[in-house]
């Protein structure tokens, strides 16, 4: 018989672990790091990026990066329950948005599963240590939802190295990153999801140019990345040539699943900020605001239980609950952003540095993107209908 749904036996150990995390955060998120509390993260990435990388190394020194990774790759191999506790306490202490998210949450787990031994040895330790940062080079001007339409080309040279030419767009945090993983066409003339390969490139090279794109909230966290005969070395290919799509999709499943657990723990904090603002700005007696707050609270519970349910299964294969996960949290979060702005009322009209106002404005604006990146709402619904309900697939051009 499996363990029942509530293993009460582990509760006291869990409590001890919880206070270990809380204590560590209290002693370490102080001094020069104190200014990072509740800062950073989507919409606030421009805040002290250098100091936040130092913070990543501080975390690493304490063994608090990559807590869910296998021990063999430098992780802590924490159980799901423990990971939840870690992320909860991290958020409760005001832990800053994680600069290392793309490495720790996306490419790292992908290399654990699909990378060869040399790649694992080359890249994973630097991610665990907070030394190297990563960007995701999937989208192109003509390959957004239709990601299989990527046109960036890669060709193998006689010495086994690669040359990459083309353009990526919407590349988050490229300006702060050391490496980029790209999906590129390795078979000339191939169409759709055939003939693609998955490559790892250093960003600091003359064949790569990064140009920031200004976002609706004023900041520029994403970029255009231009490749002109950019060089990737001979061991830069993950998987076999032509397997790019398979690996890109596996990574996307990770992106839509477990990797957002930490981010979601931050939602509880944002929700409490909305309540605090409702009181401060005098709309806490408004019945319609109260109803929306109660709905948001219900959604918060739902997401927590949904995550626990999803993570009780094999995190890499998408169960029914995992399929709805991204759609649910992104829409919940966008609604919370709107509620936050409604709660602020006229106090939200002007850009503000007030600690009560600024994070809620950031929430409002940035959450508009949540339903676009990582698979838009519409693409999510297509996937849910097709994979979750077995409904007919969207018509696709013959490859």
């Amino acid at each position, binding site marked *: 018989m499996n363990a029942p*749904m509530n293993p009460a036996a582990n509760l006291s150990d869990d409590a001890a672990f919880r206070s270990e995390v809380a204590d560590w955060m209290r002693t370490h998120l102080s001094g020069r790091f104190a200014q990072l509390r509740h800062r950073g993260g989507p919409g606030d990435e421009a805040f002290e990026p250098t100091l936040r990388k130092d913070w990543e190394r501080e975390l690493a020194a304490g063994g608090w990066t990559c807590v869910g990774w296998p021990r063999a790759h430098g992780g802590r191999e924490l159980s799901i329950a423990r990971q939840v506790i870690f992320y909860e306490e991290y958020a409760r202490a005001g832990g800053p948005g994680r600069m290392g998210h793309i490495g720790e949450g996306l490419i790292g787990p992908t290399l654990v599963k699909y990378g060869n031994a040399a790649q694992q040895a080359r890249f994973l330790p630097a991610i665990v240590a907070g030394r190297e940062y990563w960007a995701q080079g999937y989208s192109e001007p003509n390959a957004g939802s239709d990601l299989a339409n990527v046109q960036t080309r890669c060709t193998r040279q006689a010495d086994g190295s690669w040359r990459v030419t083309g353009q990526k767009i919407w590349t988050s945090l490229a300006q702060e990153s050391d490496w980029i993983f790209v999906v590129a066409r390795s078979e000339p003339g191939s169409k759709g999801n055939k003939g693609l390969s998955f490559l790892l490139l250093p960003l600091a090279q003359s064949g790569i140019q990064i140009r920031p794109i200004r976002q609706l909230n004023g900041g520029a966290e994403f970029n255009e990345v231009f490749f002109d005969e950019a060089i990737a070395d001979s061991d830069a290919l993950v998987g076999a040539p032509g397997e790019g799509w398979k690996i890109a999709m596996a990574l996307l499943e990770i992106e839509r699943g477990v990797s957002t657990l930490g981010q979601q723990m931050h939602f509880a904090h944002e929700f409490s900020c909305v309540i605090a603002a409702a009181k401060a700005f005098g709309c806490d007696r408004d019945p319609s605001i*109260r109803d929306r707050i109660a709905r948001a*609270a*219900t959604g918060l519970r739902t997401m927590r239980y*949904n995550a626990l*349910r999803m993570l009780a299964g094999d995190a890499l294969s998408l169960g029914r609950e995992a399929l709805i996960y991204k759609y649910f949290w992104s829409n919940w979060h966008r609604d919370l952003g709107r509620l936050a702005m409604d709660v602020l009322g006229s106090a939200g009209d002007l850009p503000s540095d007030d600690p009560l106002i600024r994070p809620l404005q950031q929430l409002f604006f940035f959450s508009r993107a949540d339903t676009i990146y990582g698979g838009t709402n519409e693409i999510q619904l297509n996937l849910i209908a097709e994979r979750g309900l077995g409904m007919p697939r969207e018509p696709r051009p013959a490859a």
Partner: protein
Amino acid sequence: MELKLSDDQRMIRESADSVLADVASSAQTRLAMTAPGAYDAAVWQRLASELGWCAIPIPEKFGGLGLGAIEQVQLFEAMGRHLLCAPYFATVALAVPLLLSLASNAAQQKWLPPIAEGRLRATAPMVADSSDEVSSTSLKLRANRHGNEWRLDGSVARLIDGASAQLLLLPASIGDNITAWFAVETAQSGLRAVEREAWDLTRRFAEIELDQVVAHRIDEPSDKTSASPAIAMARLCLAAEQLGGAQACLDMSVAYTATRKQFGRSIAGFQAIKHRCAQMMVEVEALRSTVYGTAALFSNSQTEQDCPTEAALTLALAKETYFQCAQEAIQLHGGVGFTWEYDPQLHLKRAQAGSHWMGTASVLRARLADELMV
């Protein structure tokens, strides 16, 4: 807390589904809907006596299986999905939790074993609002002592399965704003039950009048006097049943749209239809996570104090989800969705009926807001 069903829990879920597929097909449900009491006695005999479903939440010392909320929600979900017509909800979701949460040991000893054996069908009134207590001012029942016997007078407007139950658990005023709980055997003079057919024919209600009816006081001597845990459990059970109903609406919609052809192809291929089904699945799975998570909370003594609120918010979500899915199922069926013959209407009526039981979604959320914004 981890949300993973144990093998035993999974077995309960699967066997409930297969039994109900056998005894609660659409045709069988429609027959039961026209029977007195809106249930099939032979089916009830099988579920309650042979399969021991009523024994699930009853402690072993009273002849039950002593299982918790996690197992219960599995059963209620399956029943909601199959639209089972049976006095199970009244007996197990309403009456048993009351006996467990506020009855004296003697009363438990007297009533729980026959329920566990499937020999006694019981019912109790539901709160009409978002509260956790039955207030004596809203009651139209008074109890008076006659020697060492209690007698009840008054009426109850709406009692689920009130005319077919053998035992009623009723709160009555004993003066000075004090409410006490009584068990009333229905086979006695002075008690009149009039069965009402509602729009939702899958369940019967009764109006009850009591005139000097002999009653047994059940909450004395007992150190637990609150109905709150029982009301929380009843809310969770209803939410689980509504989850099953919502799932059935989604399943019907996916199945129907796959076979119905228009414009030369299956309508399931139109994105407008796919997206609405996907949206339903999002809502149903979100509700499932919430119901299972809340059930896990109930089974964990260390989080007991959170249960009433969690149950309230879970039920609010269930009510809206069920109604929405029933409405969508009708829409996606087109004209046949509006017929008596197809099943979406049965769910619409159940969803509508349940929308105000134990508080509407909006009053339940208002209660949550009160707790969040003290």
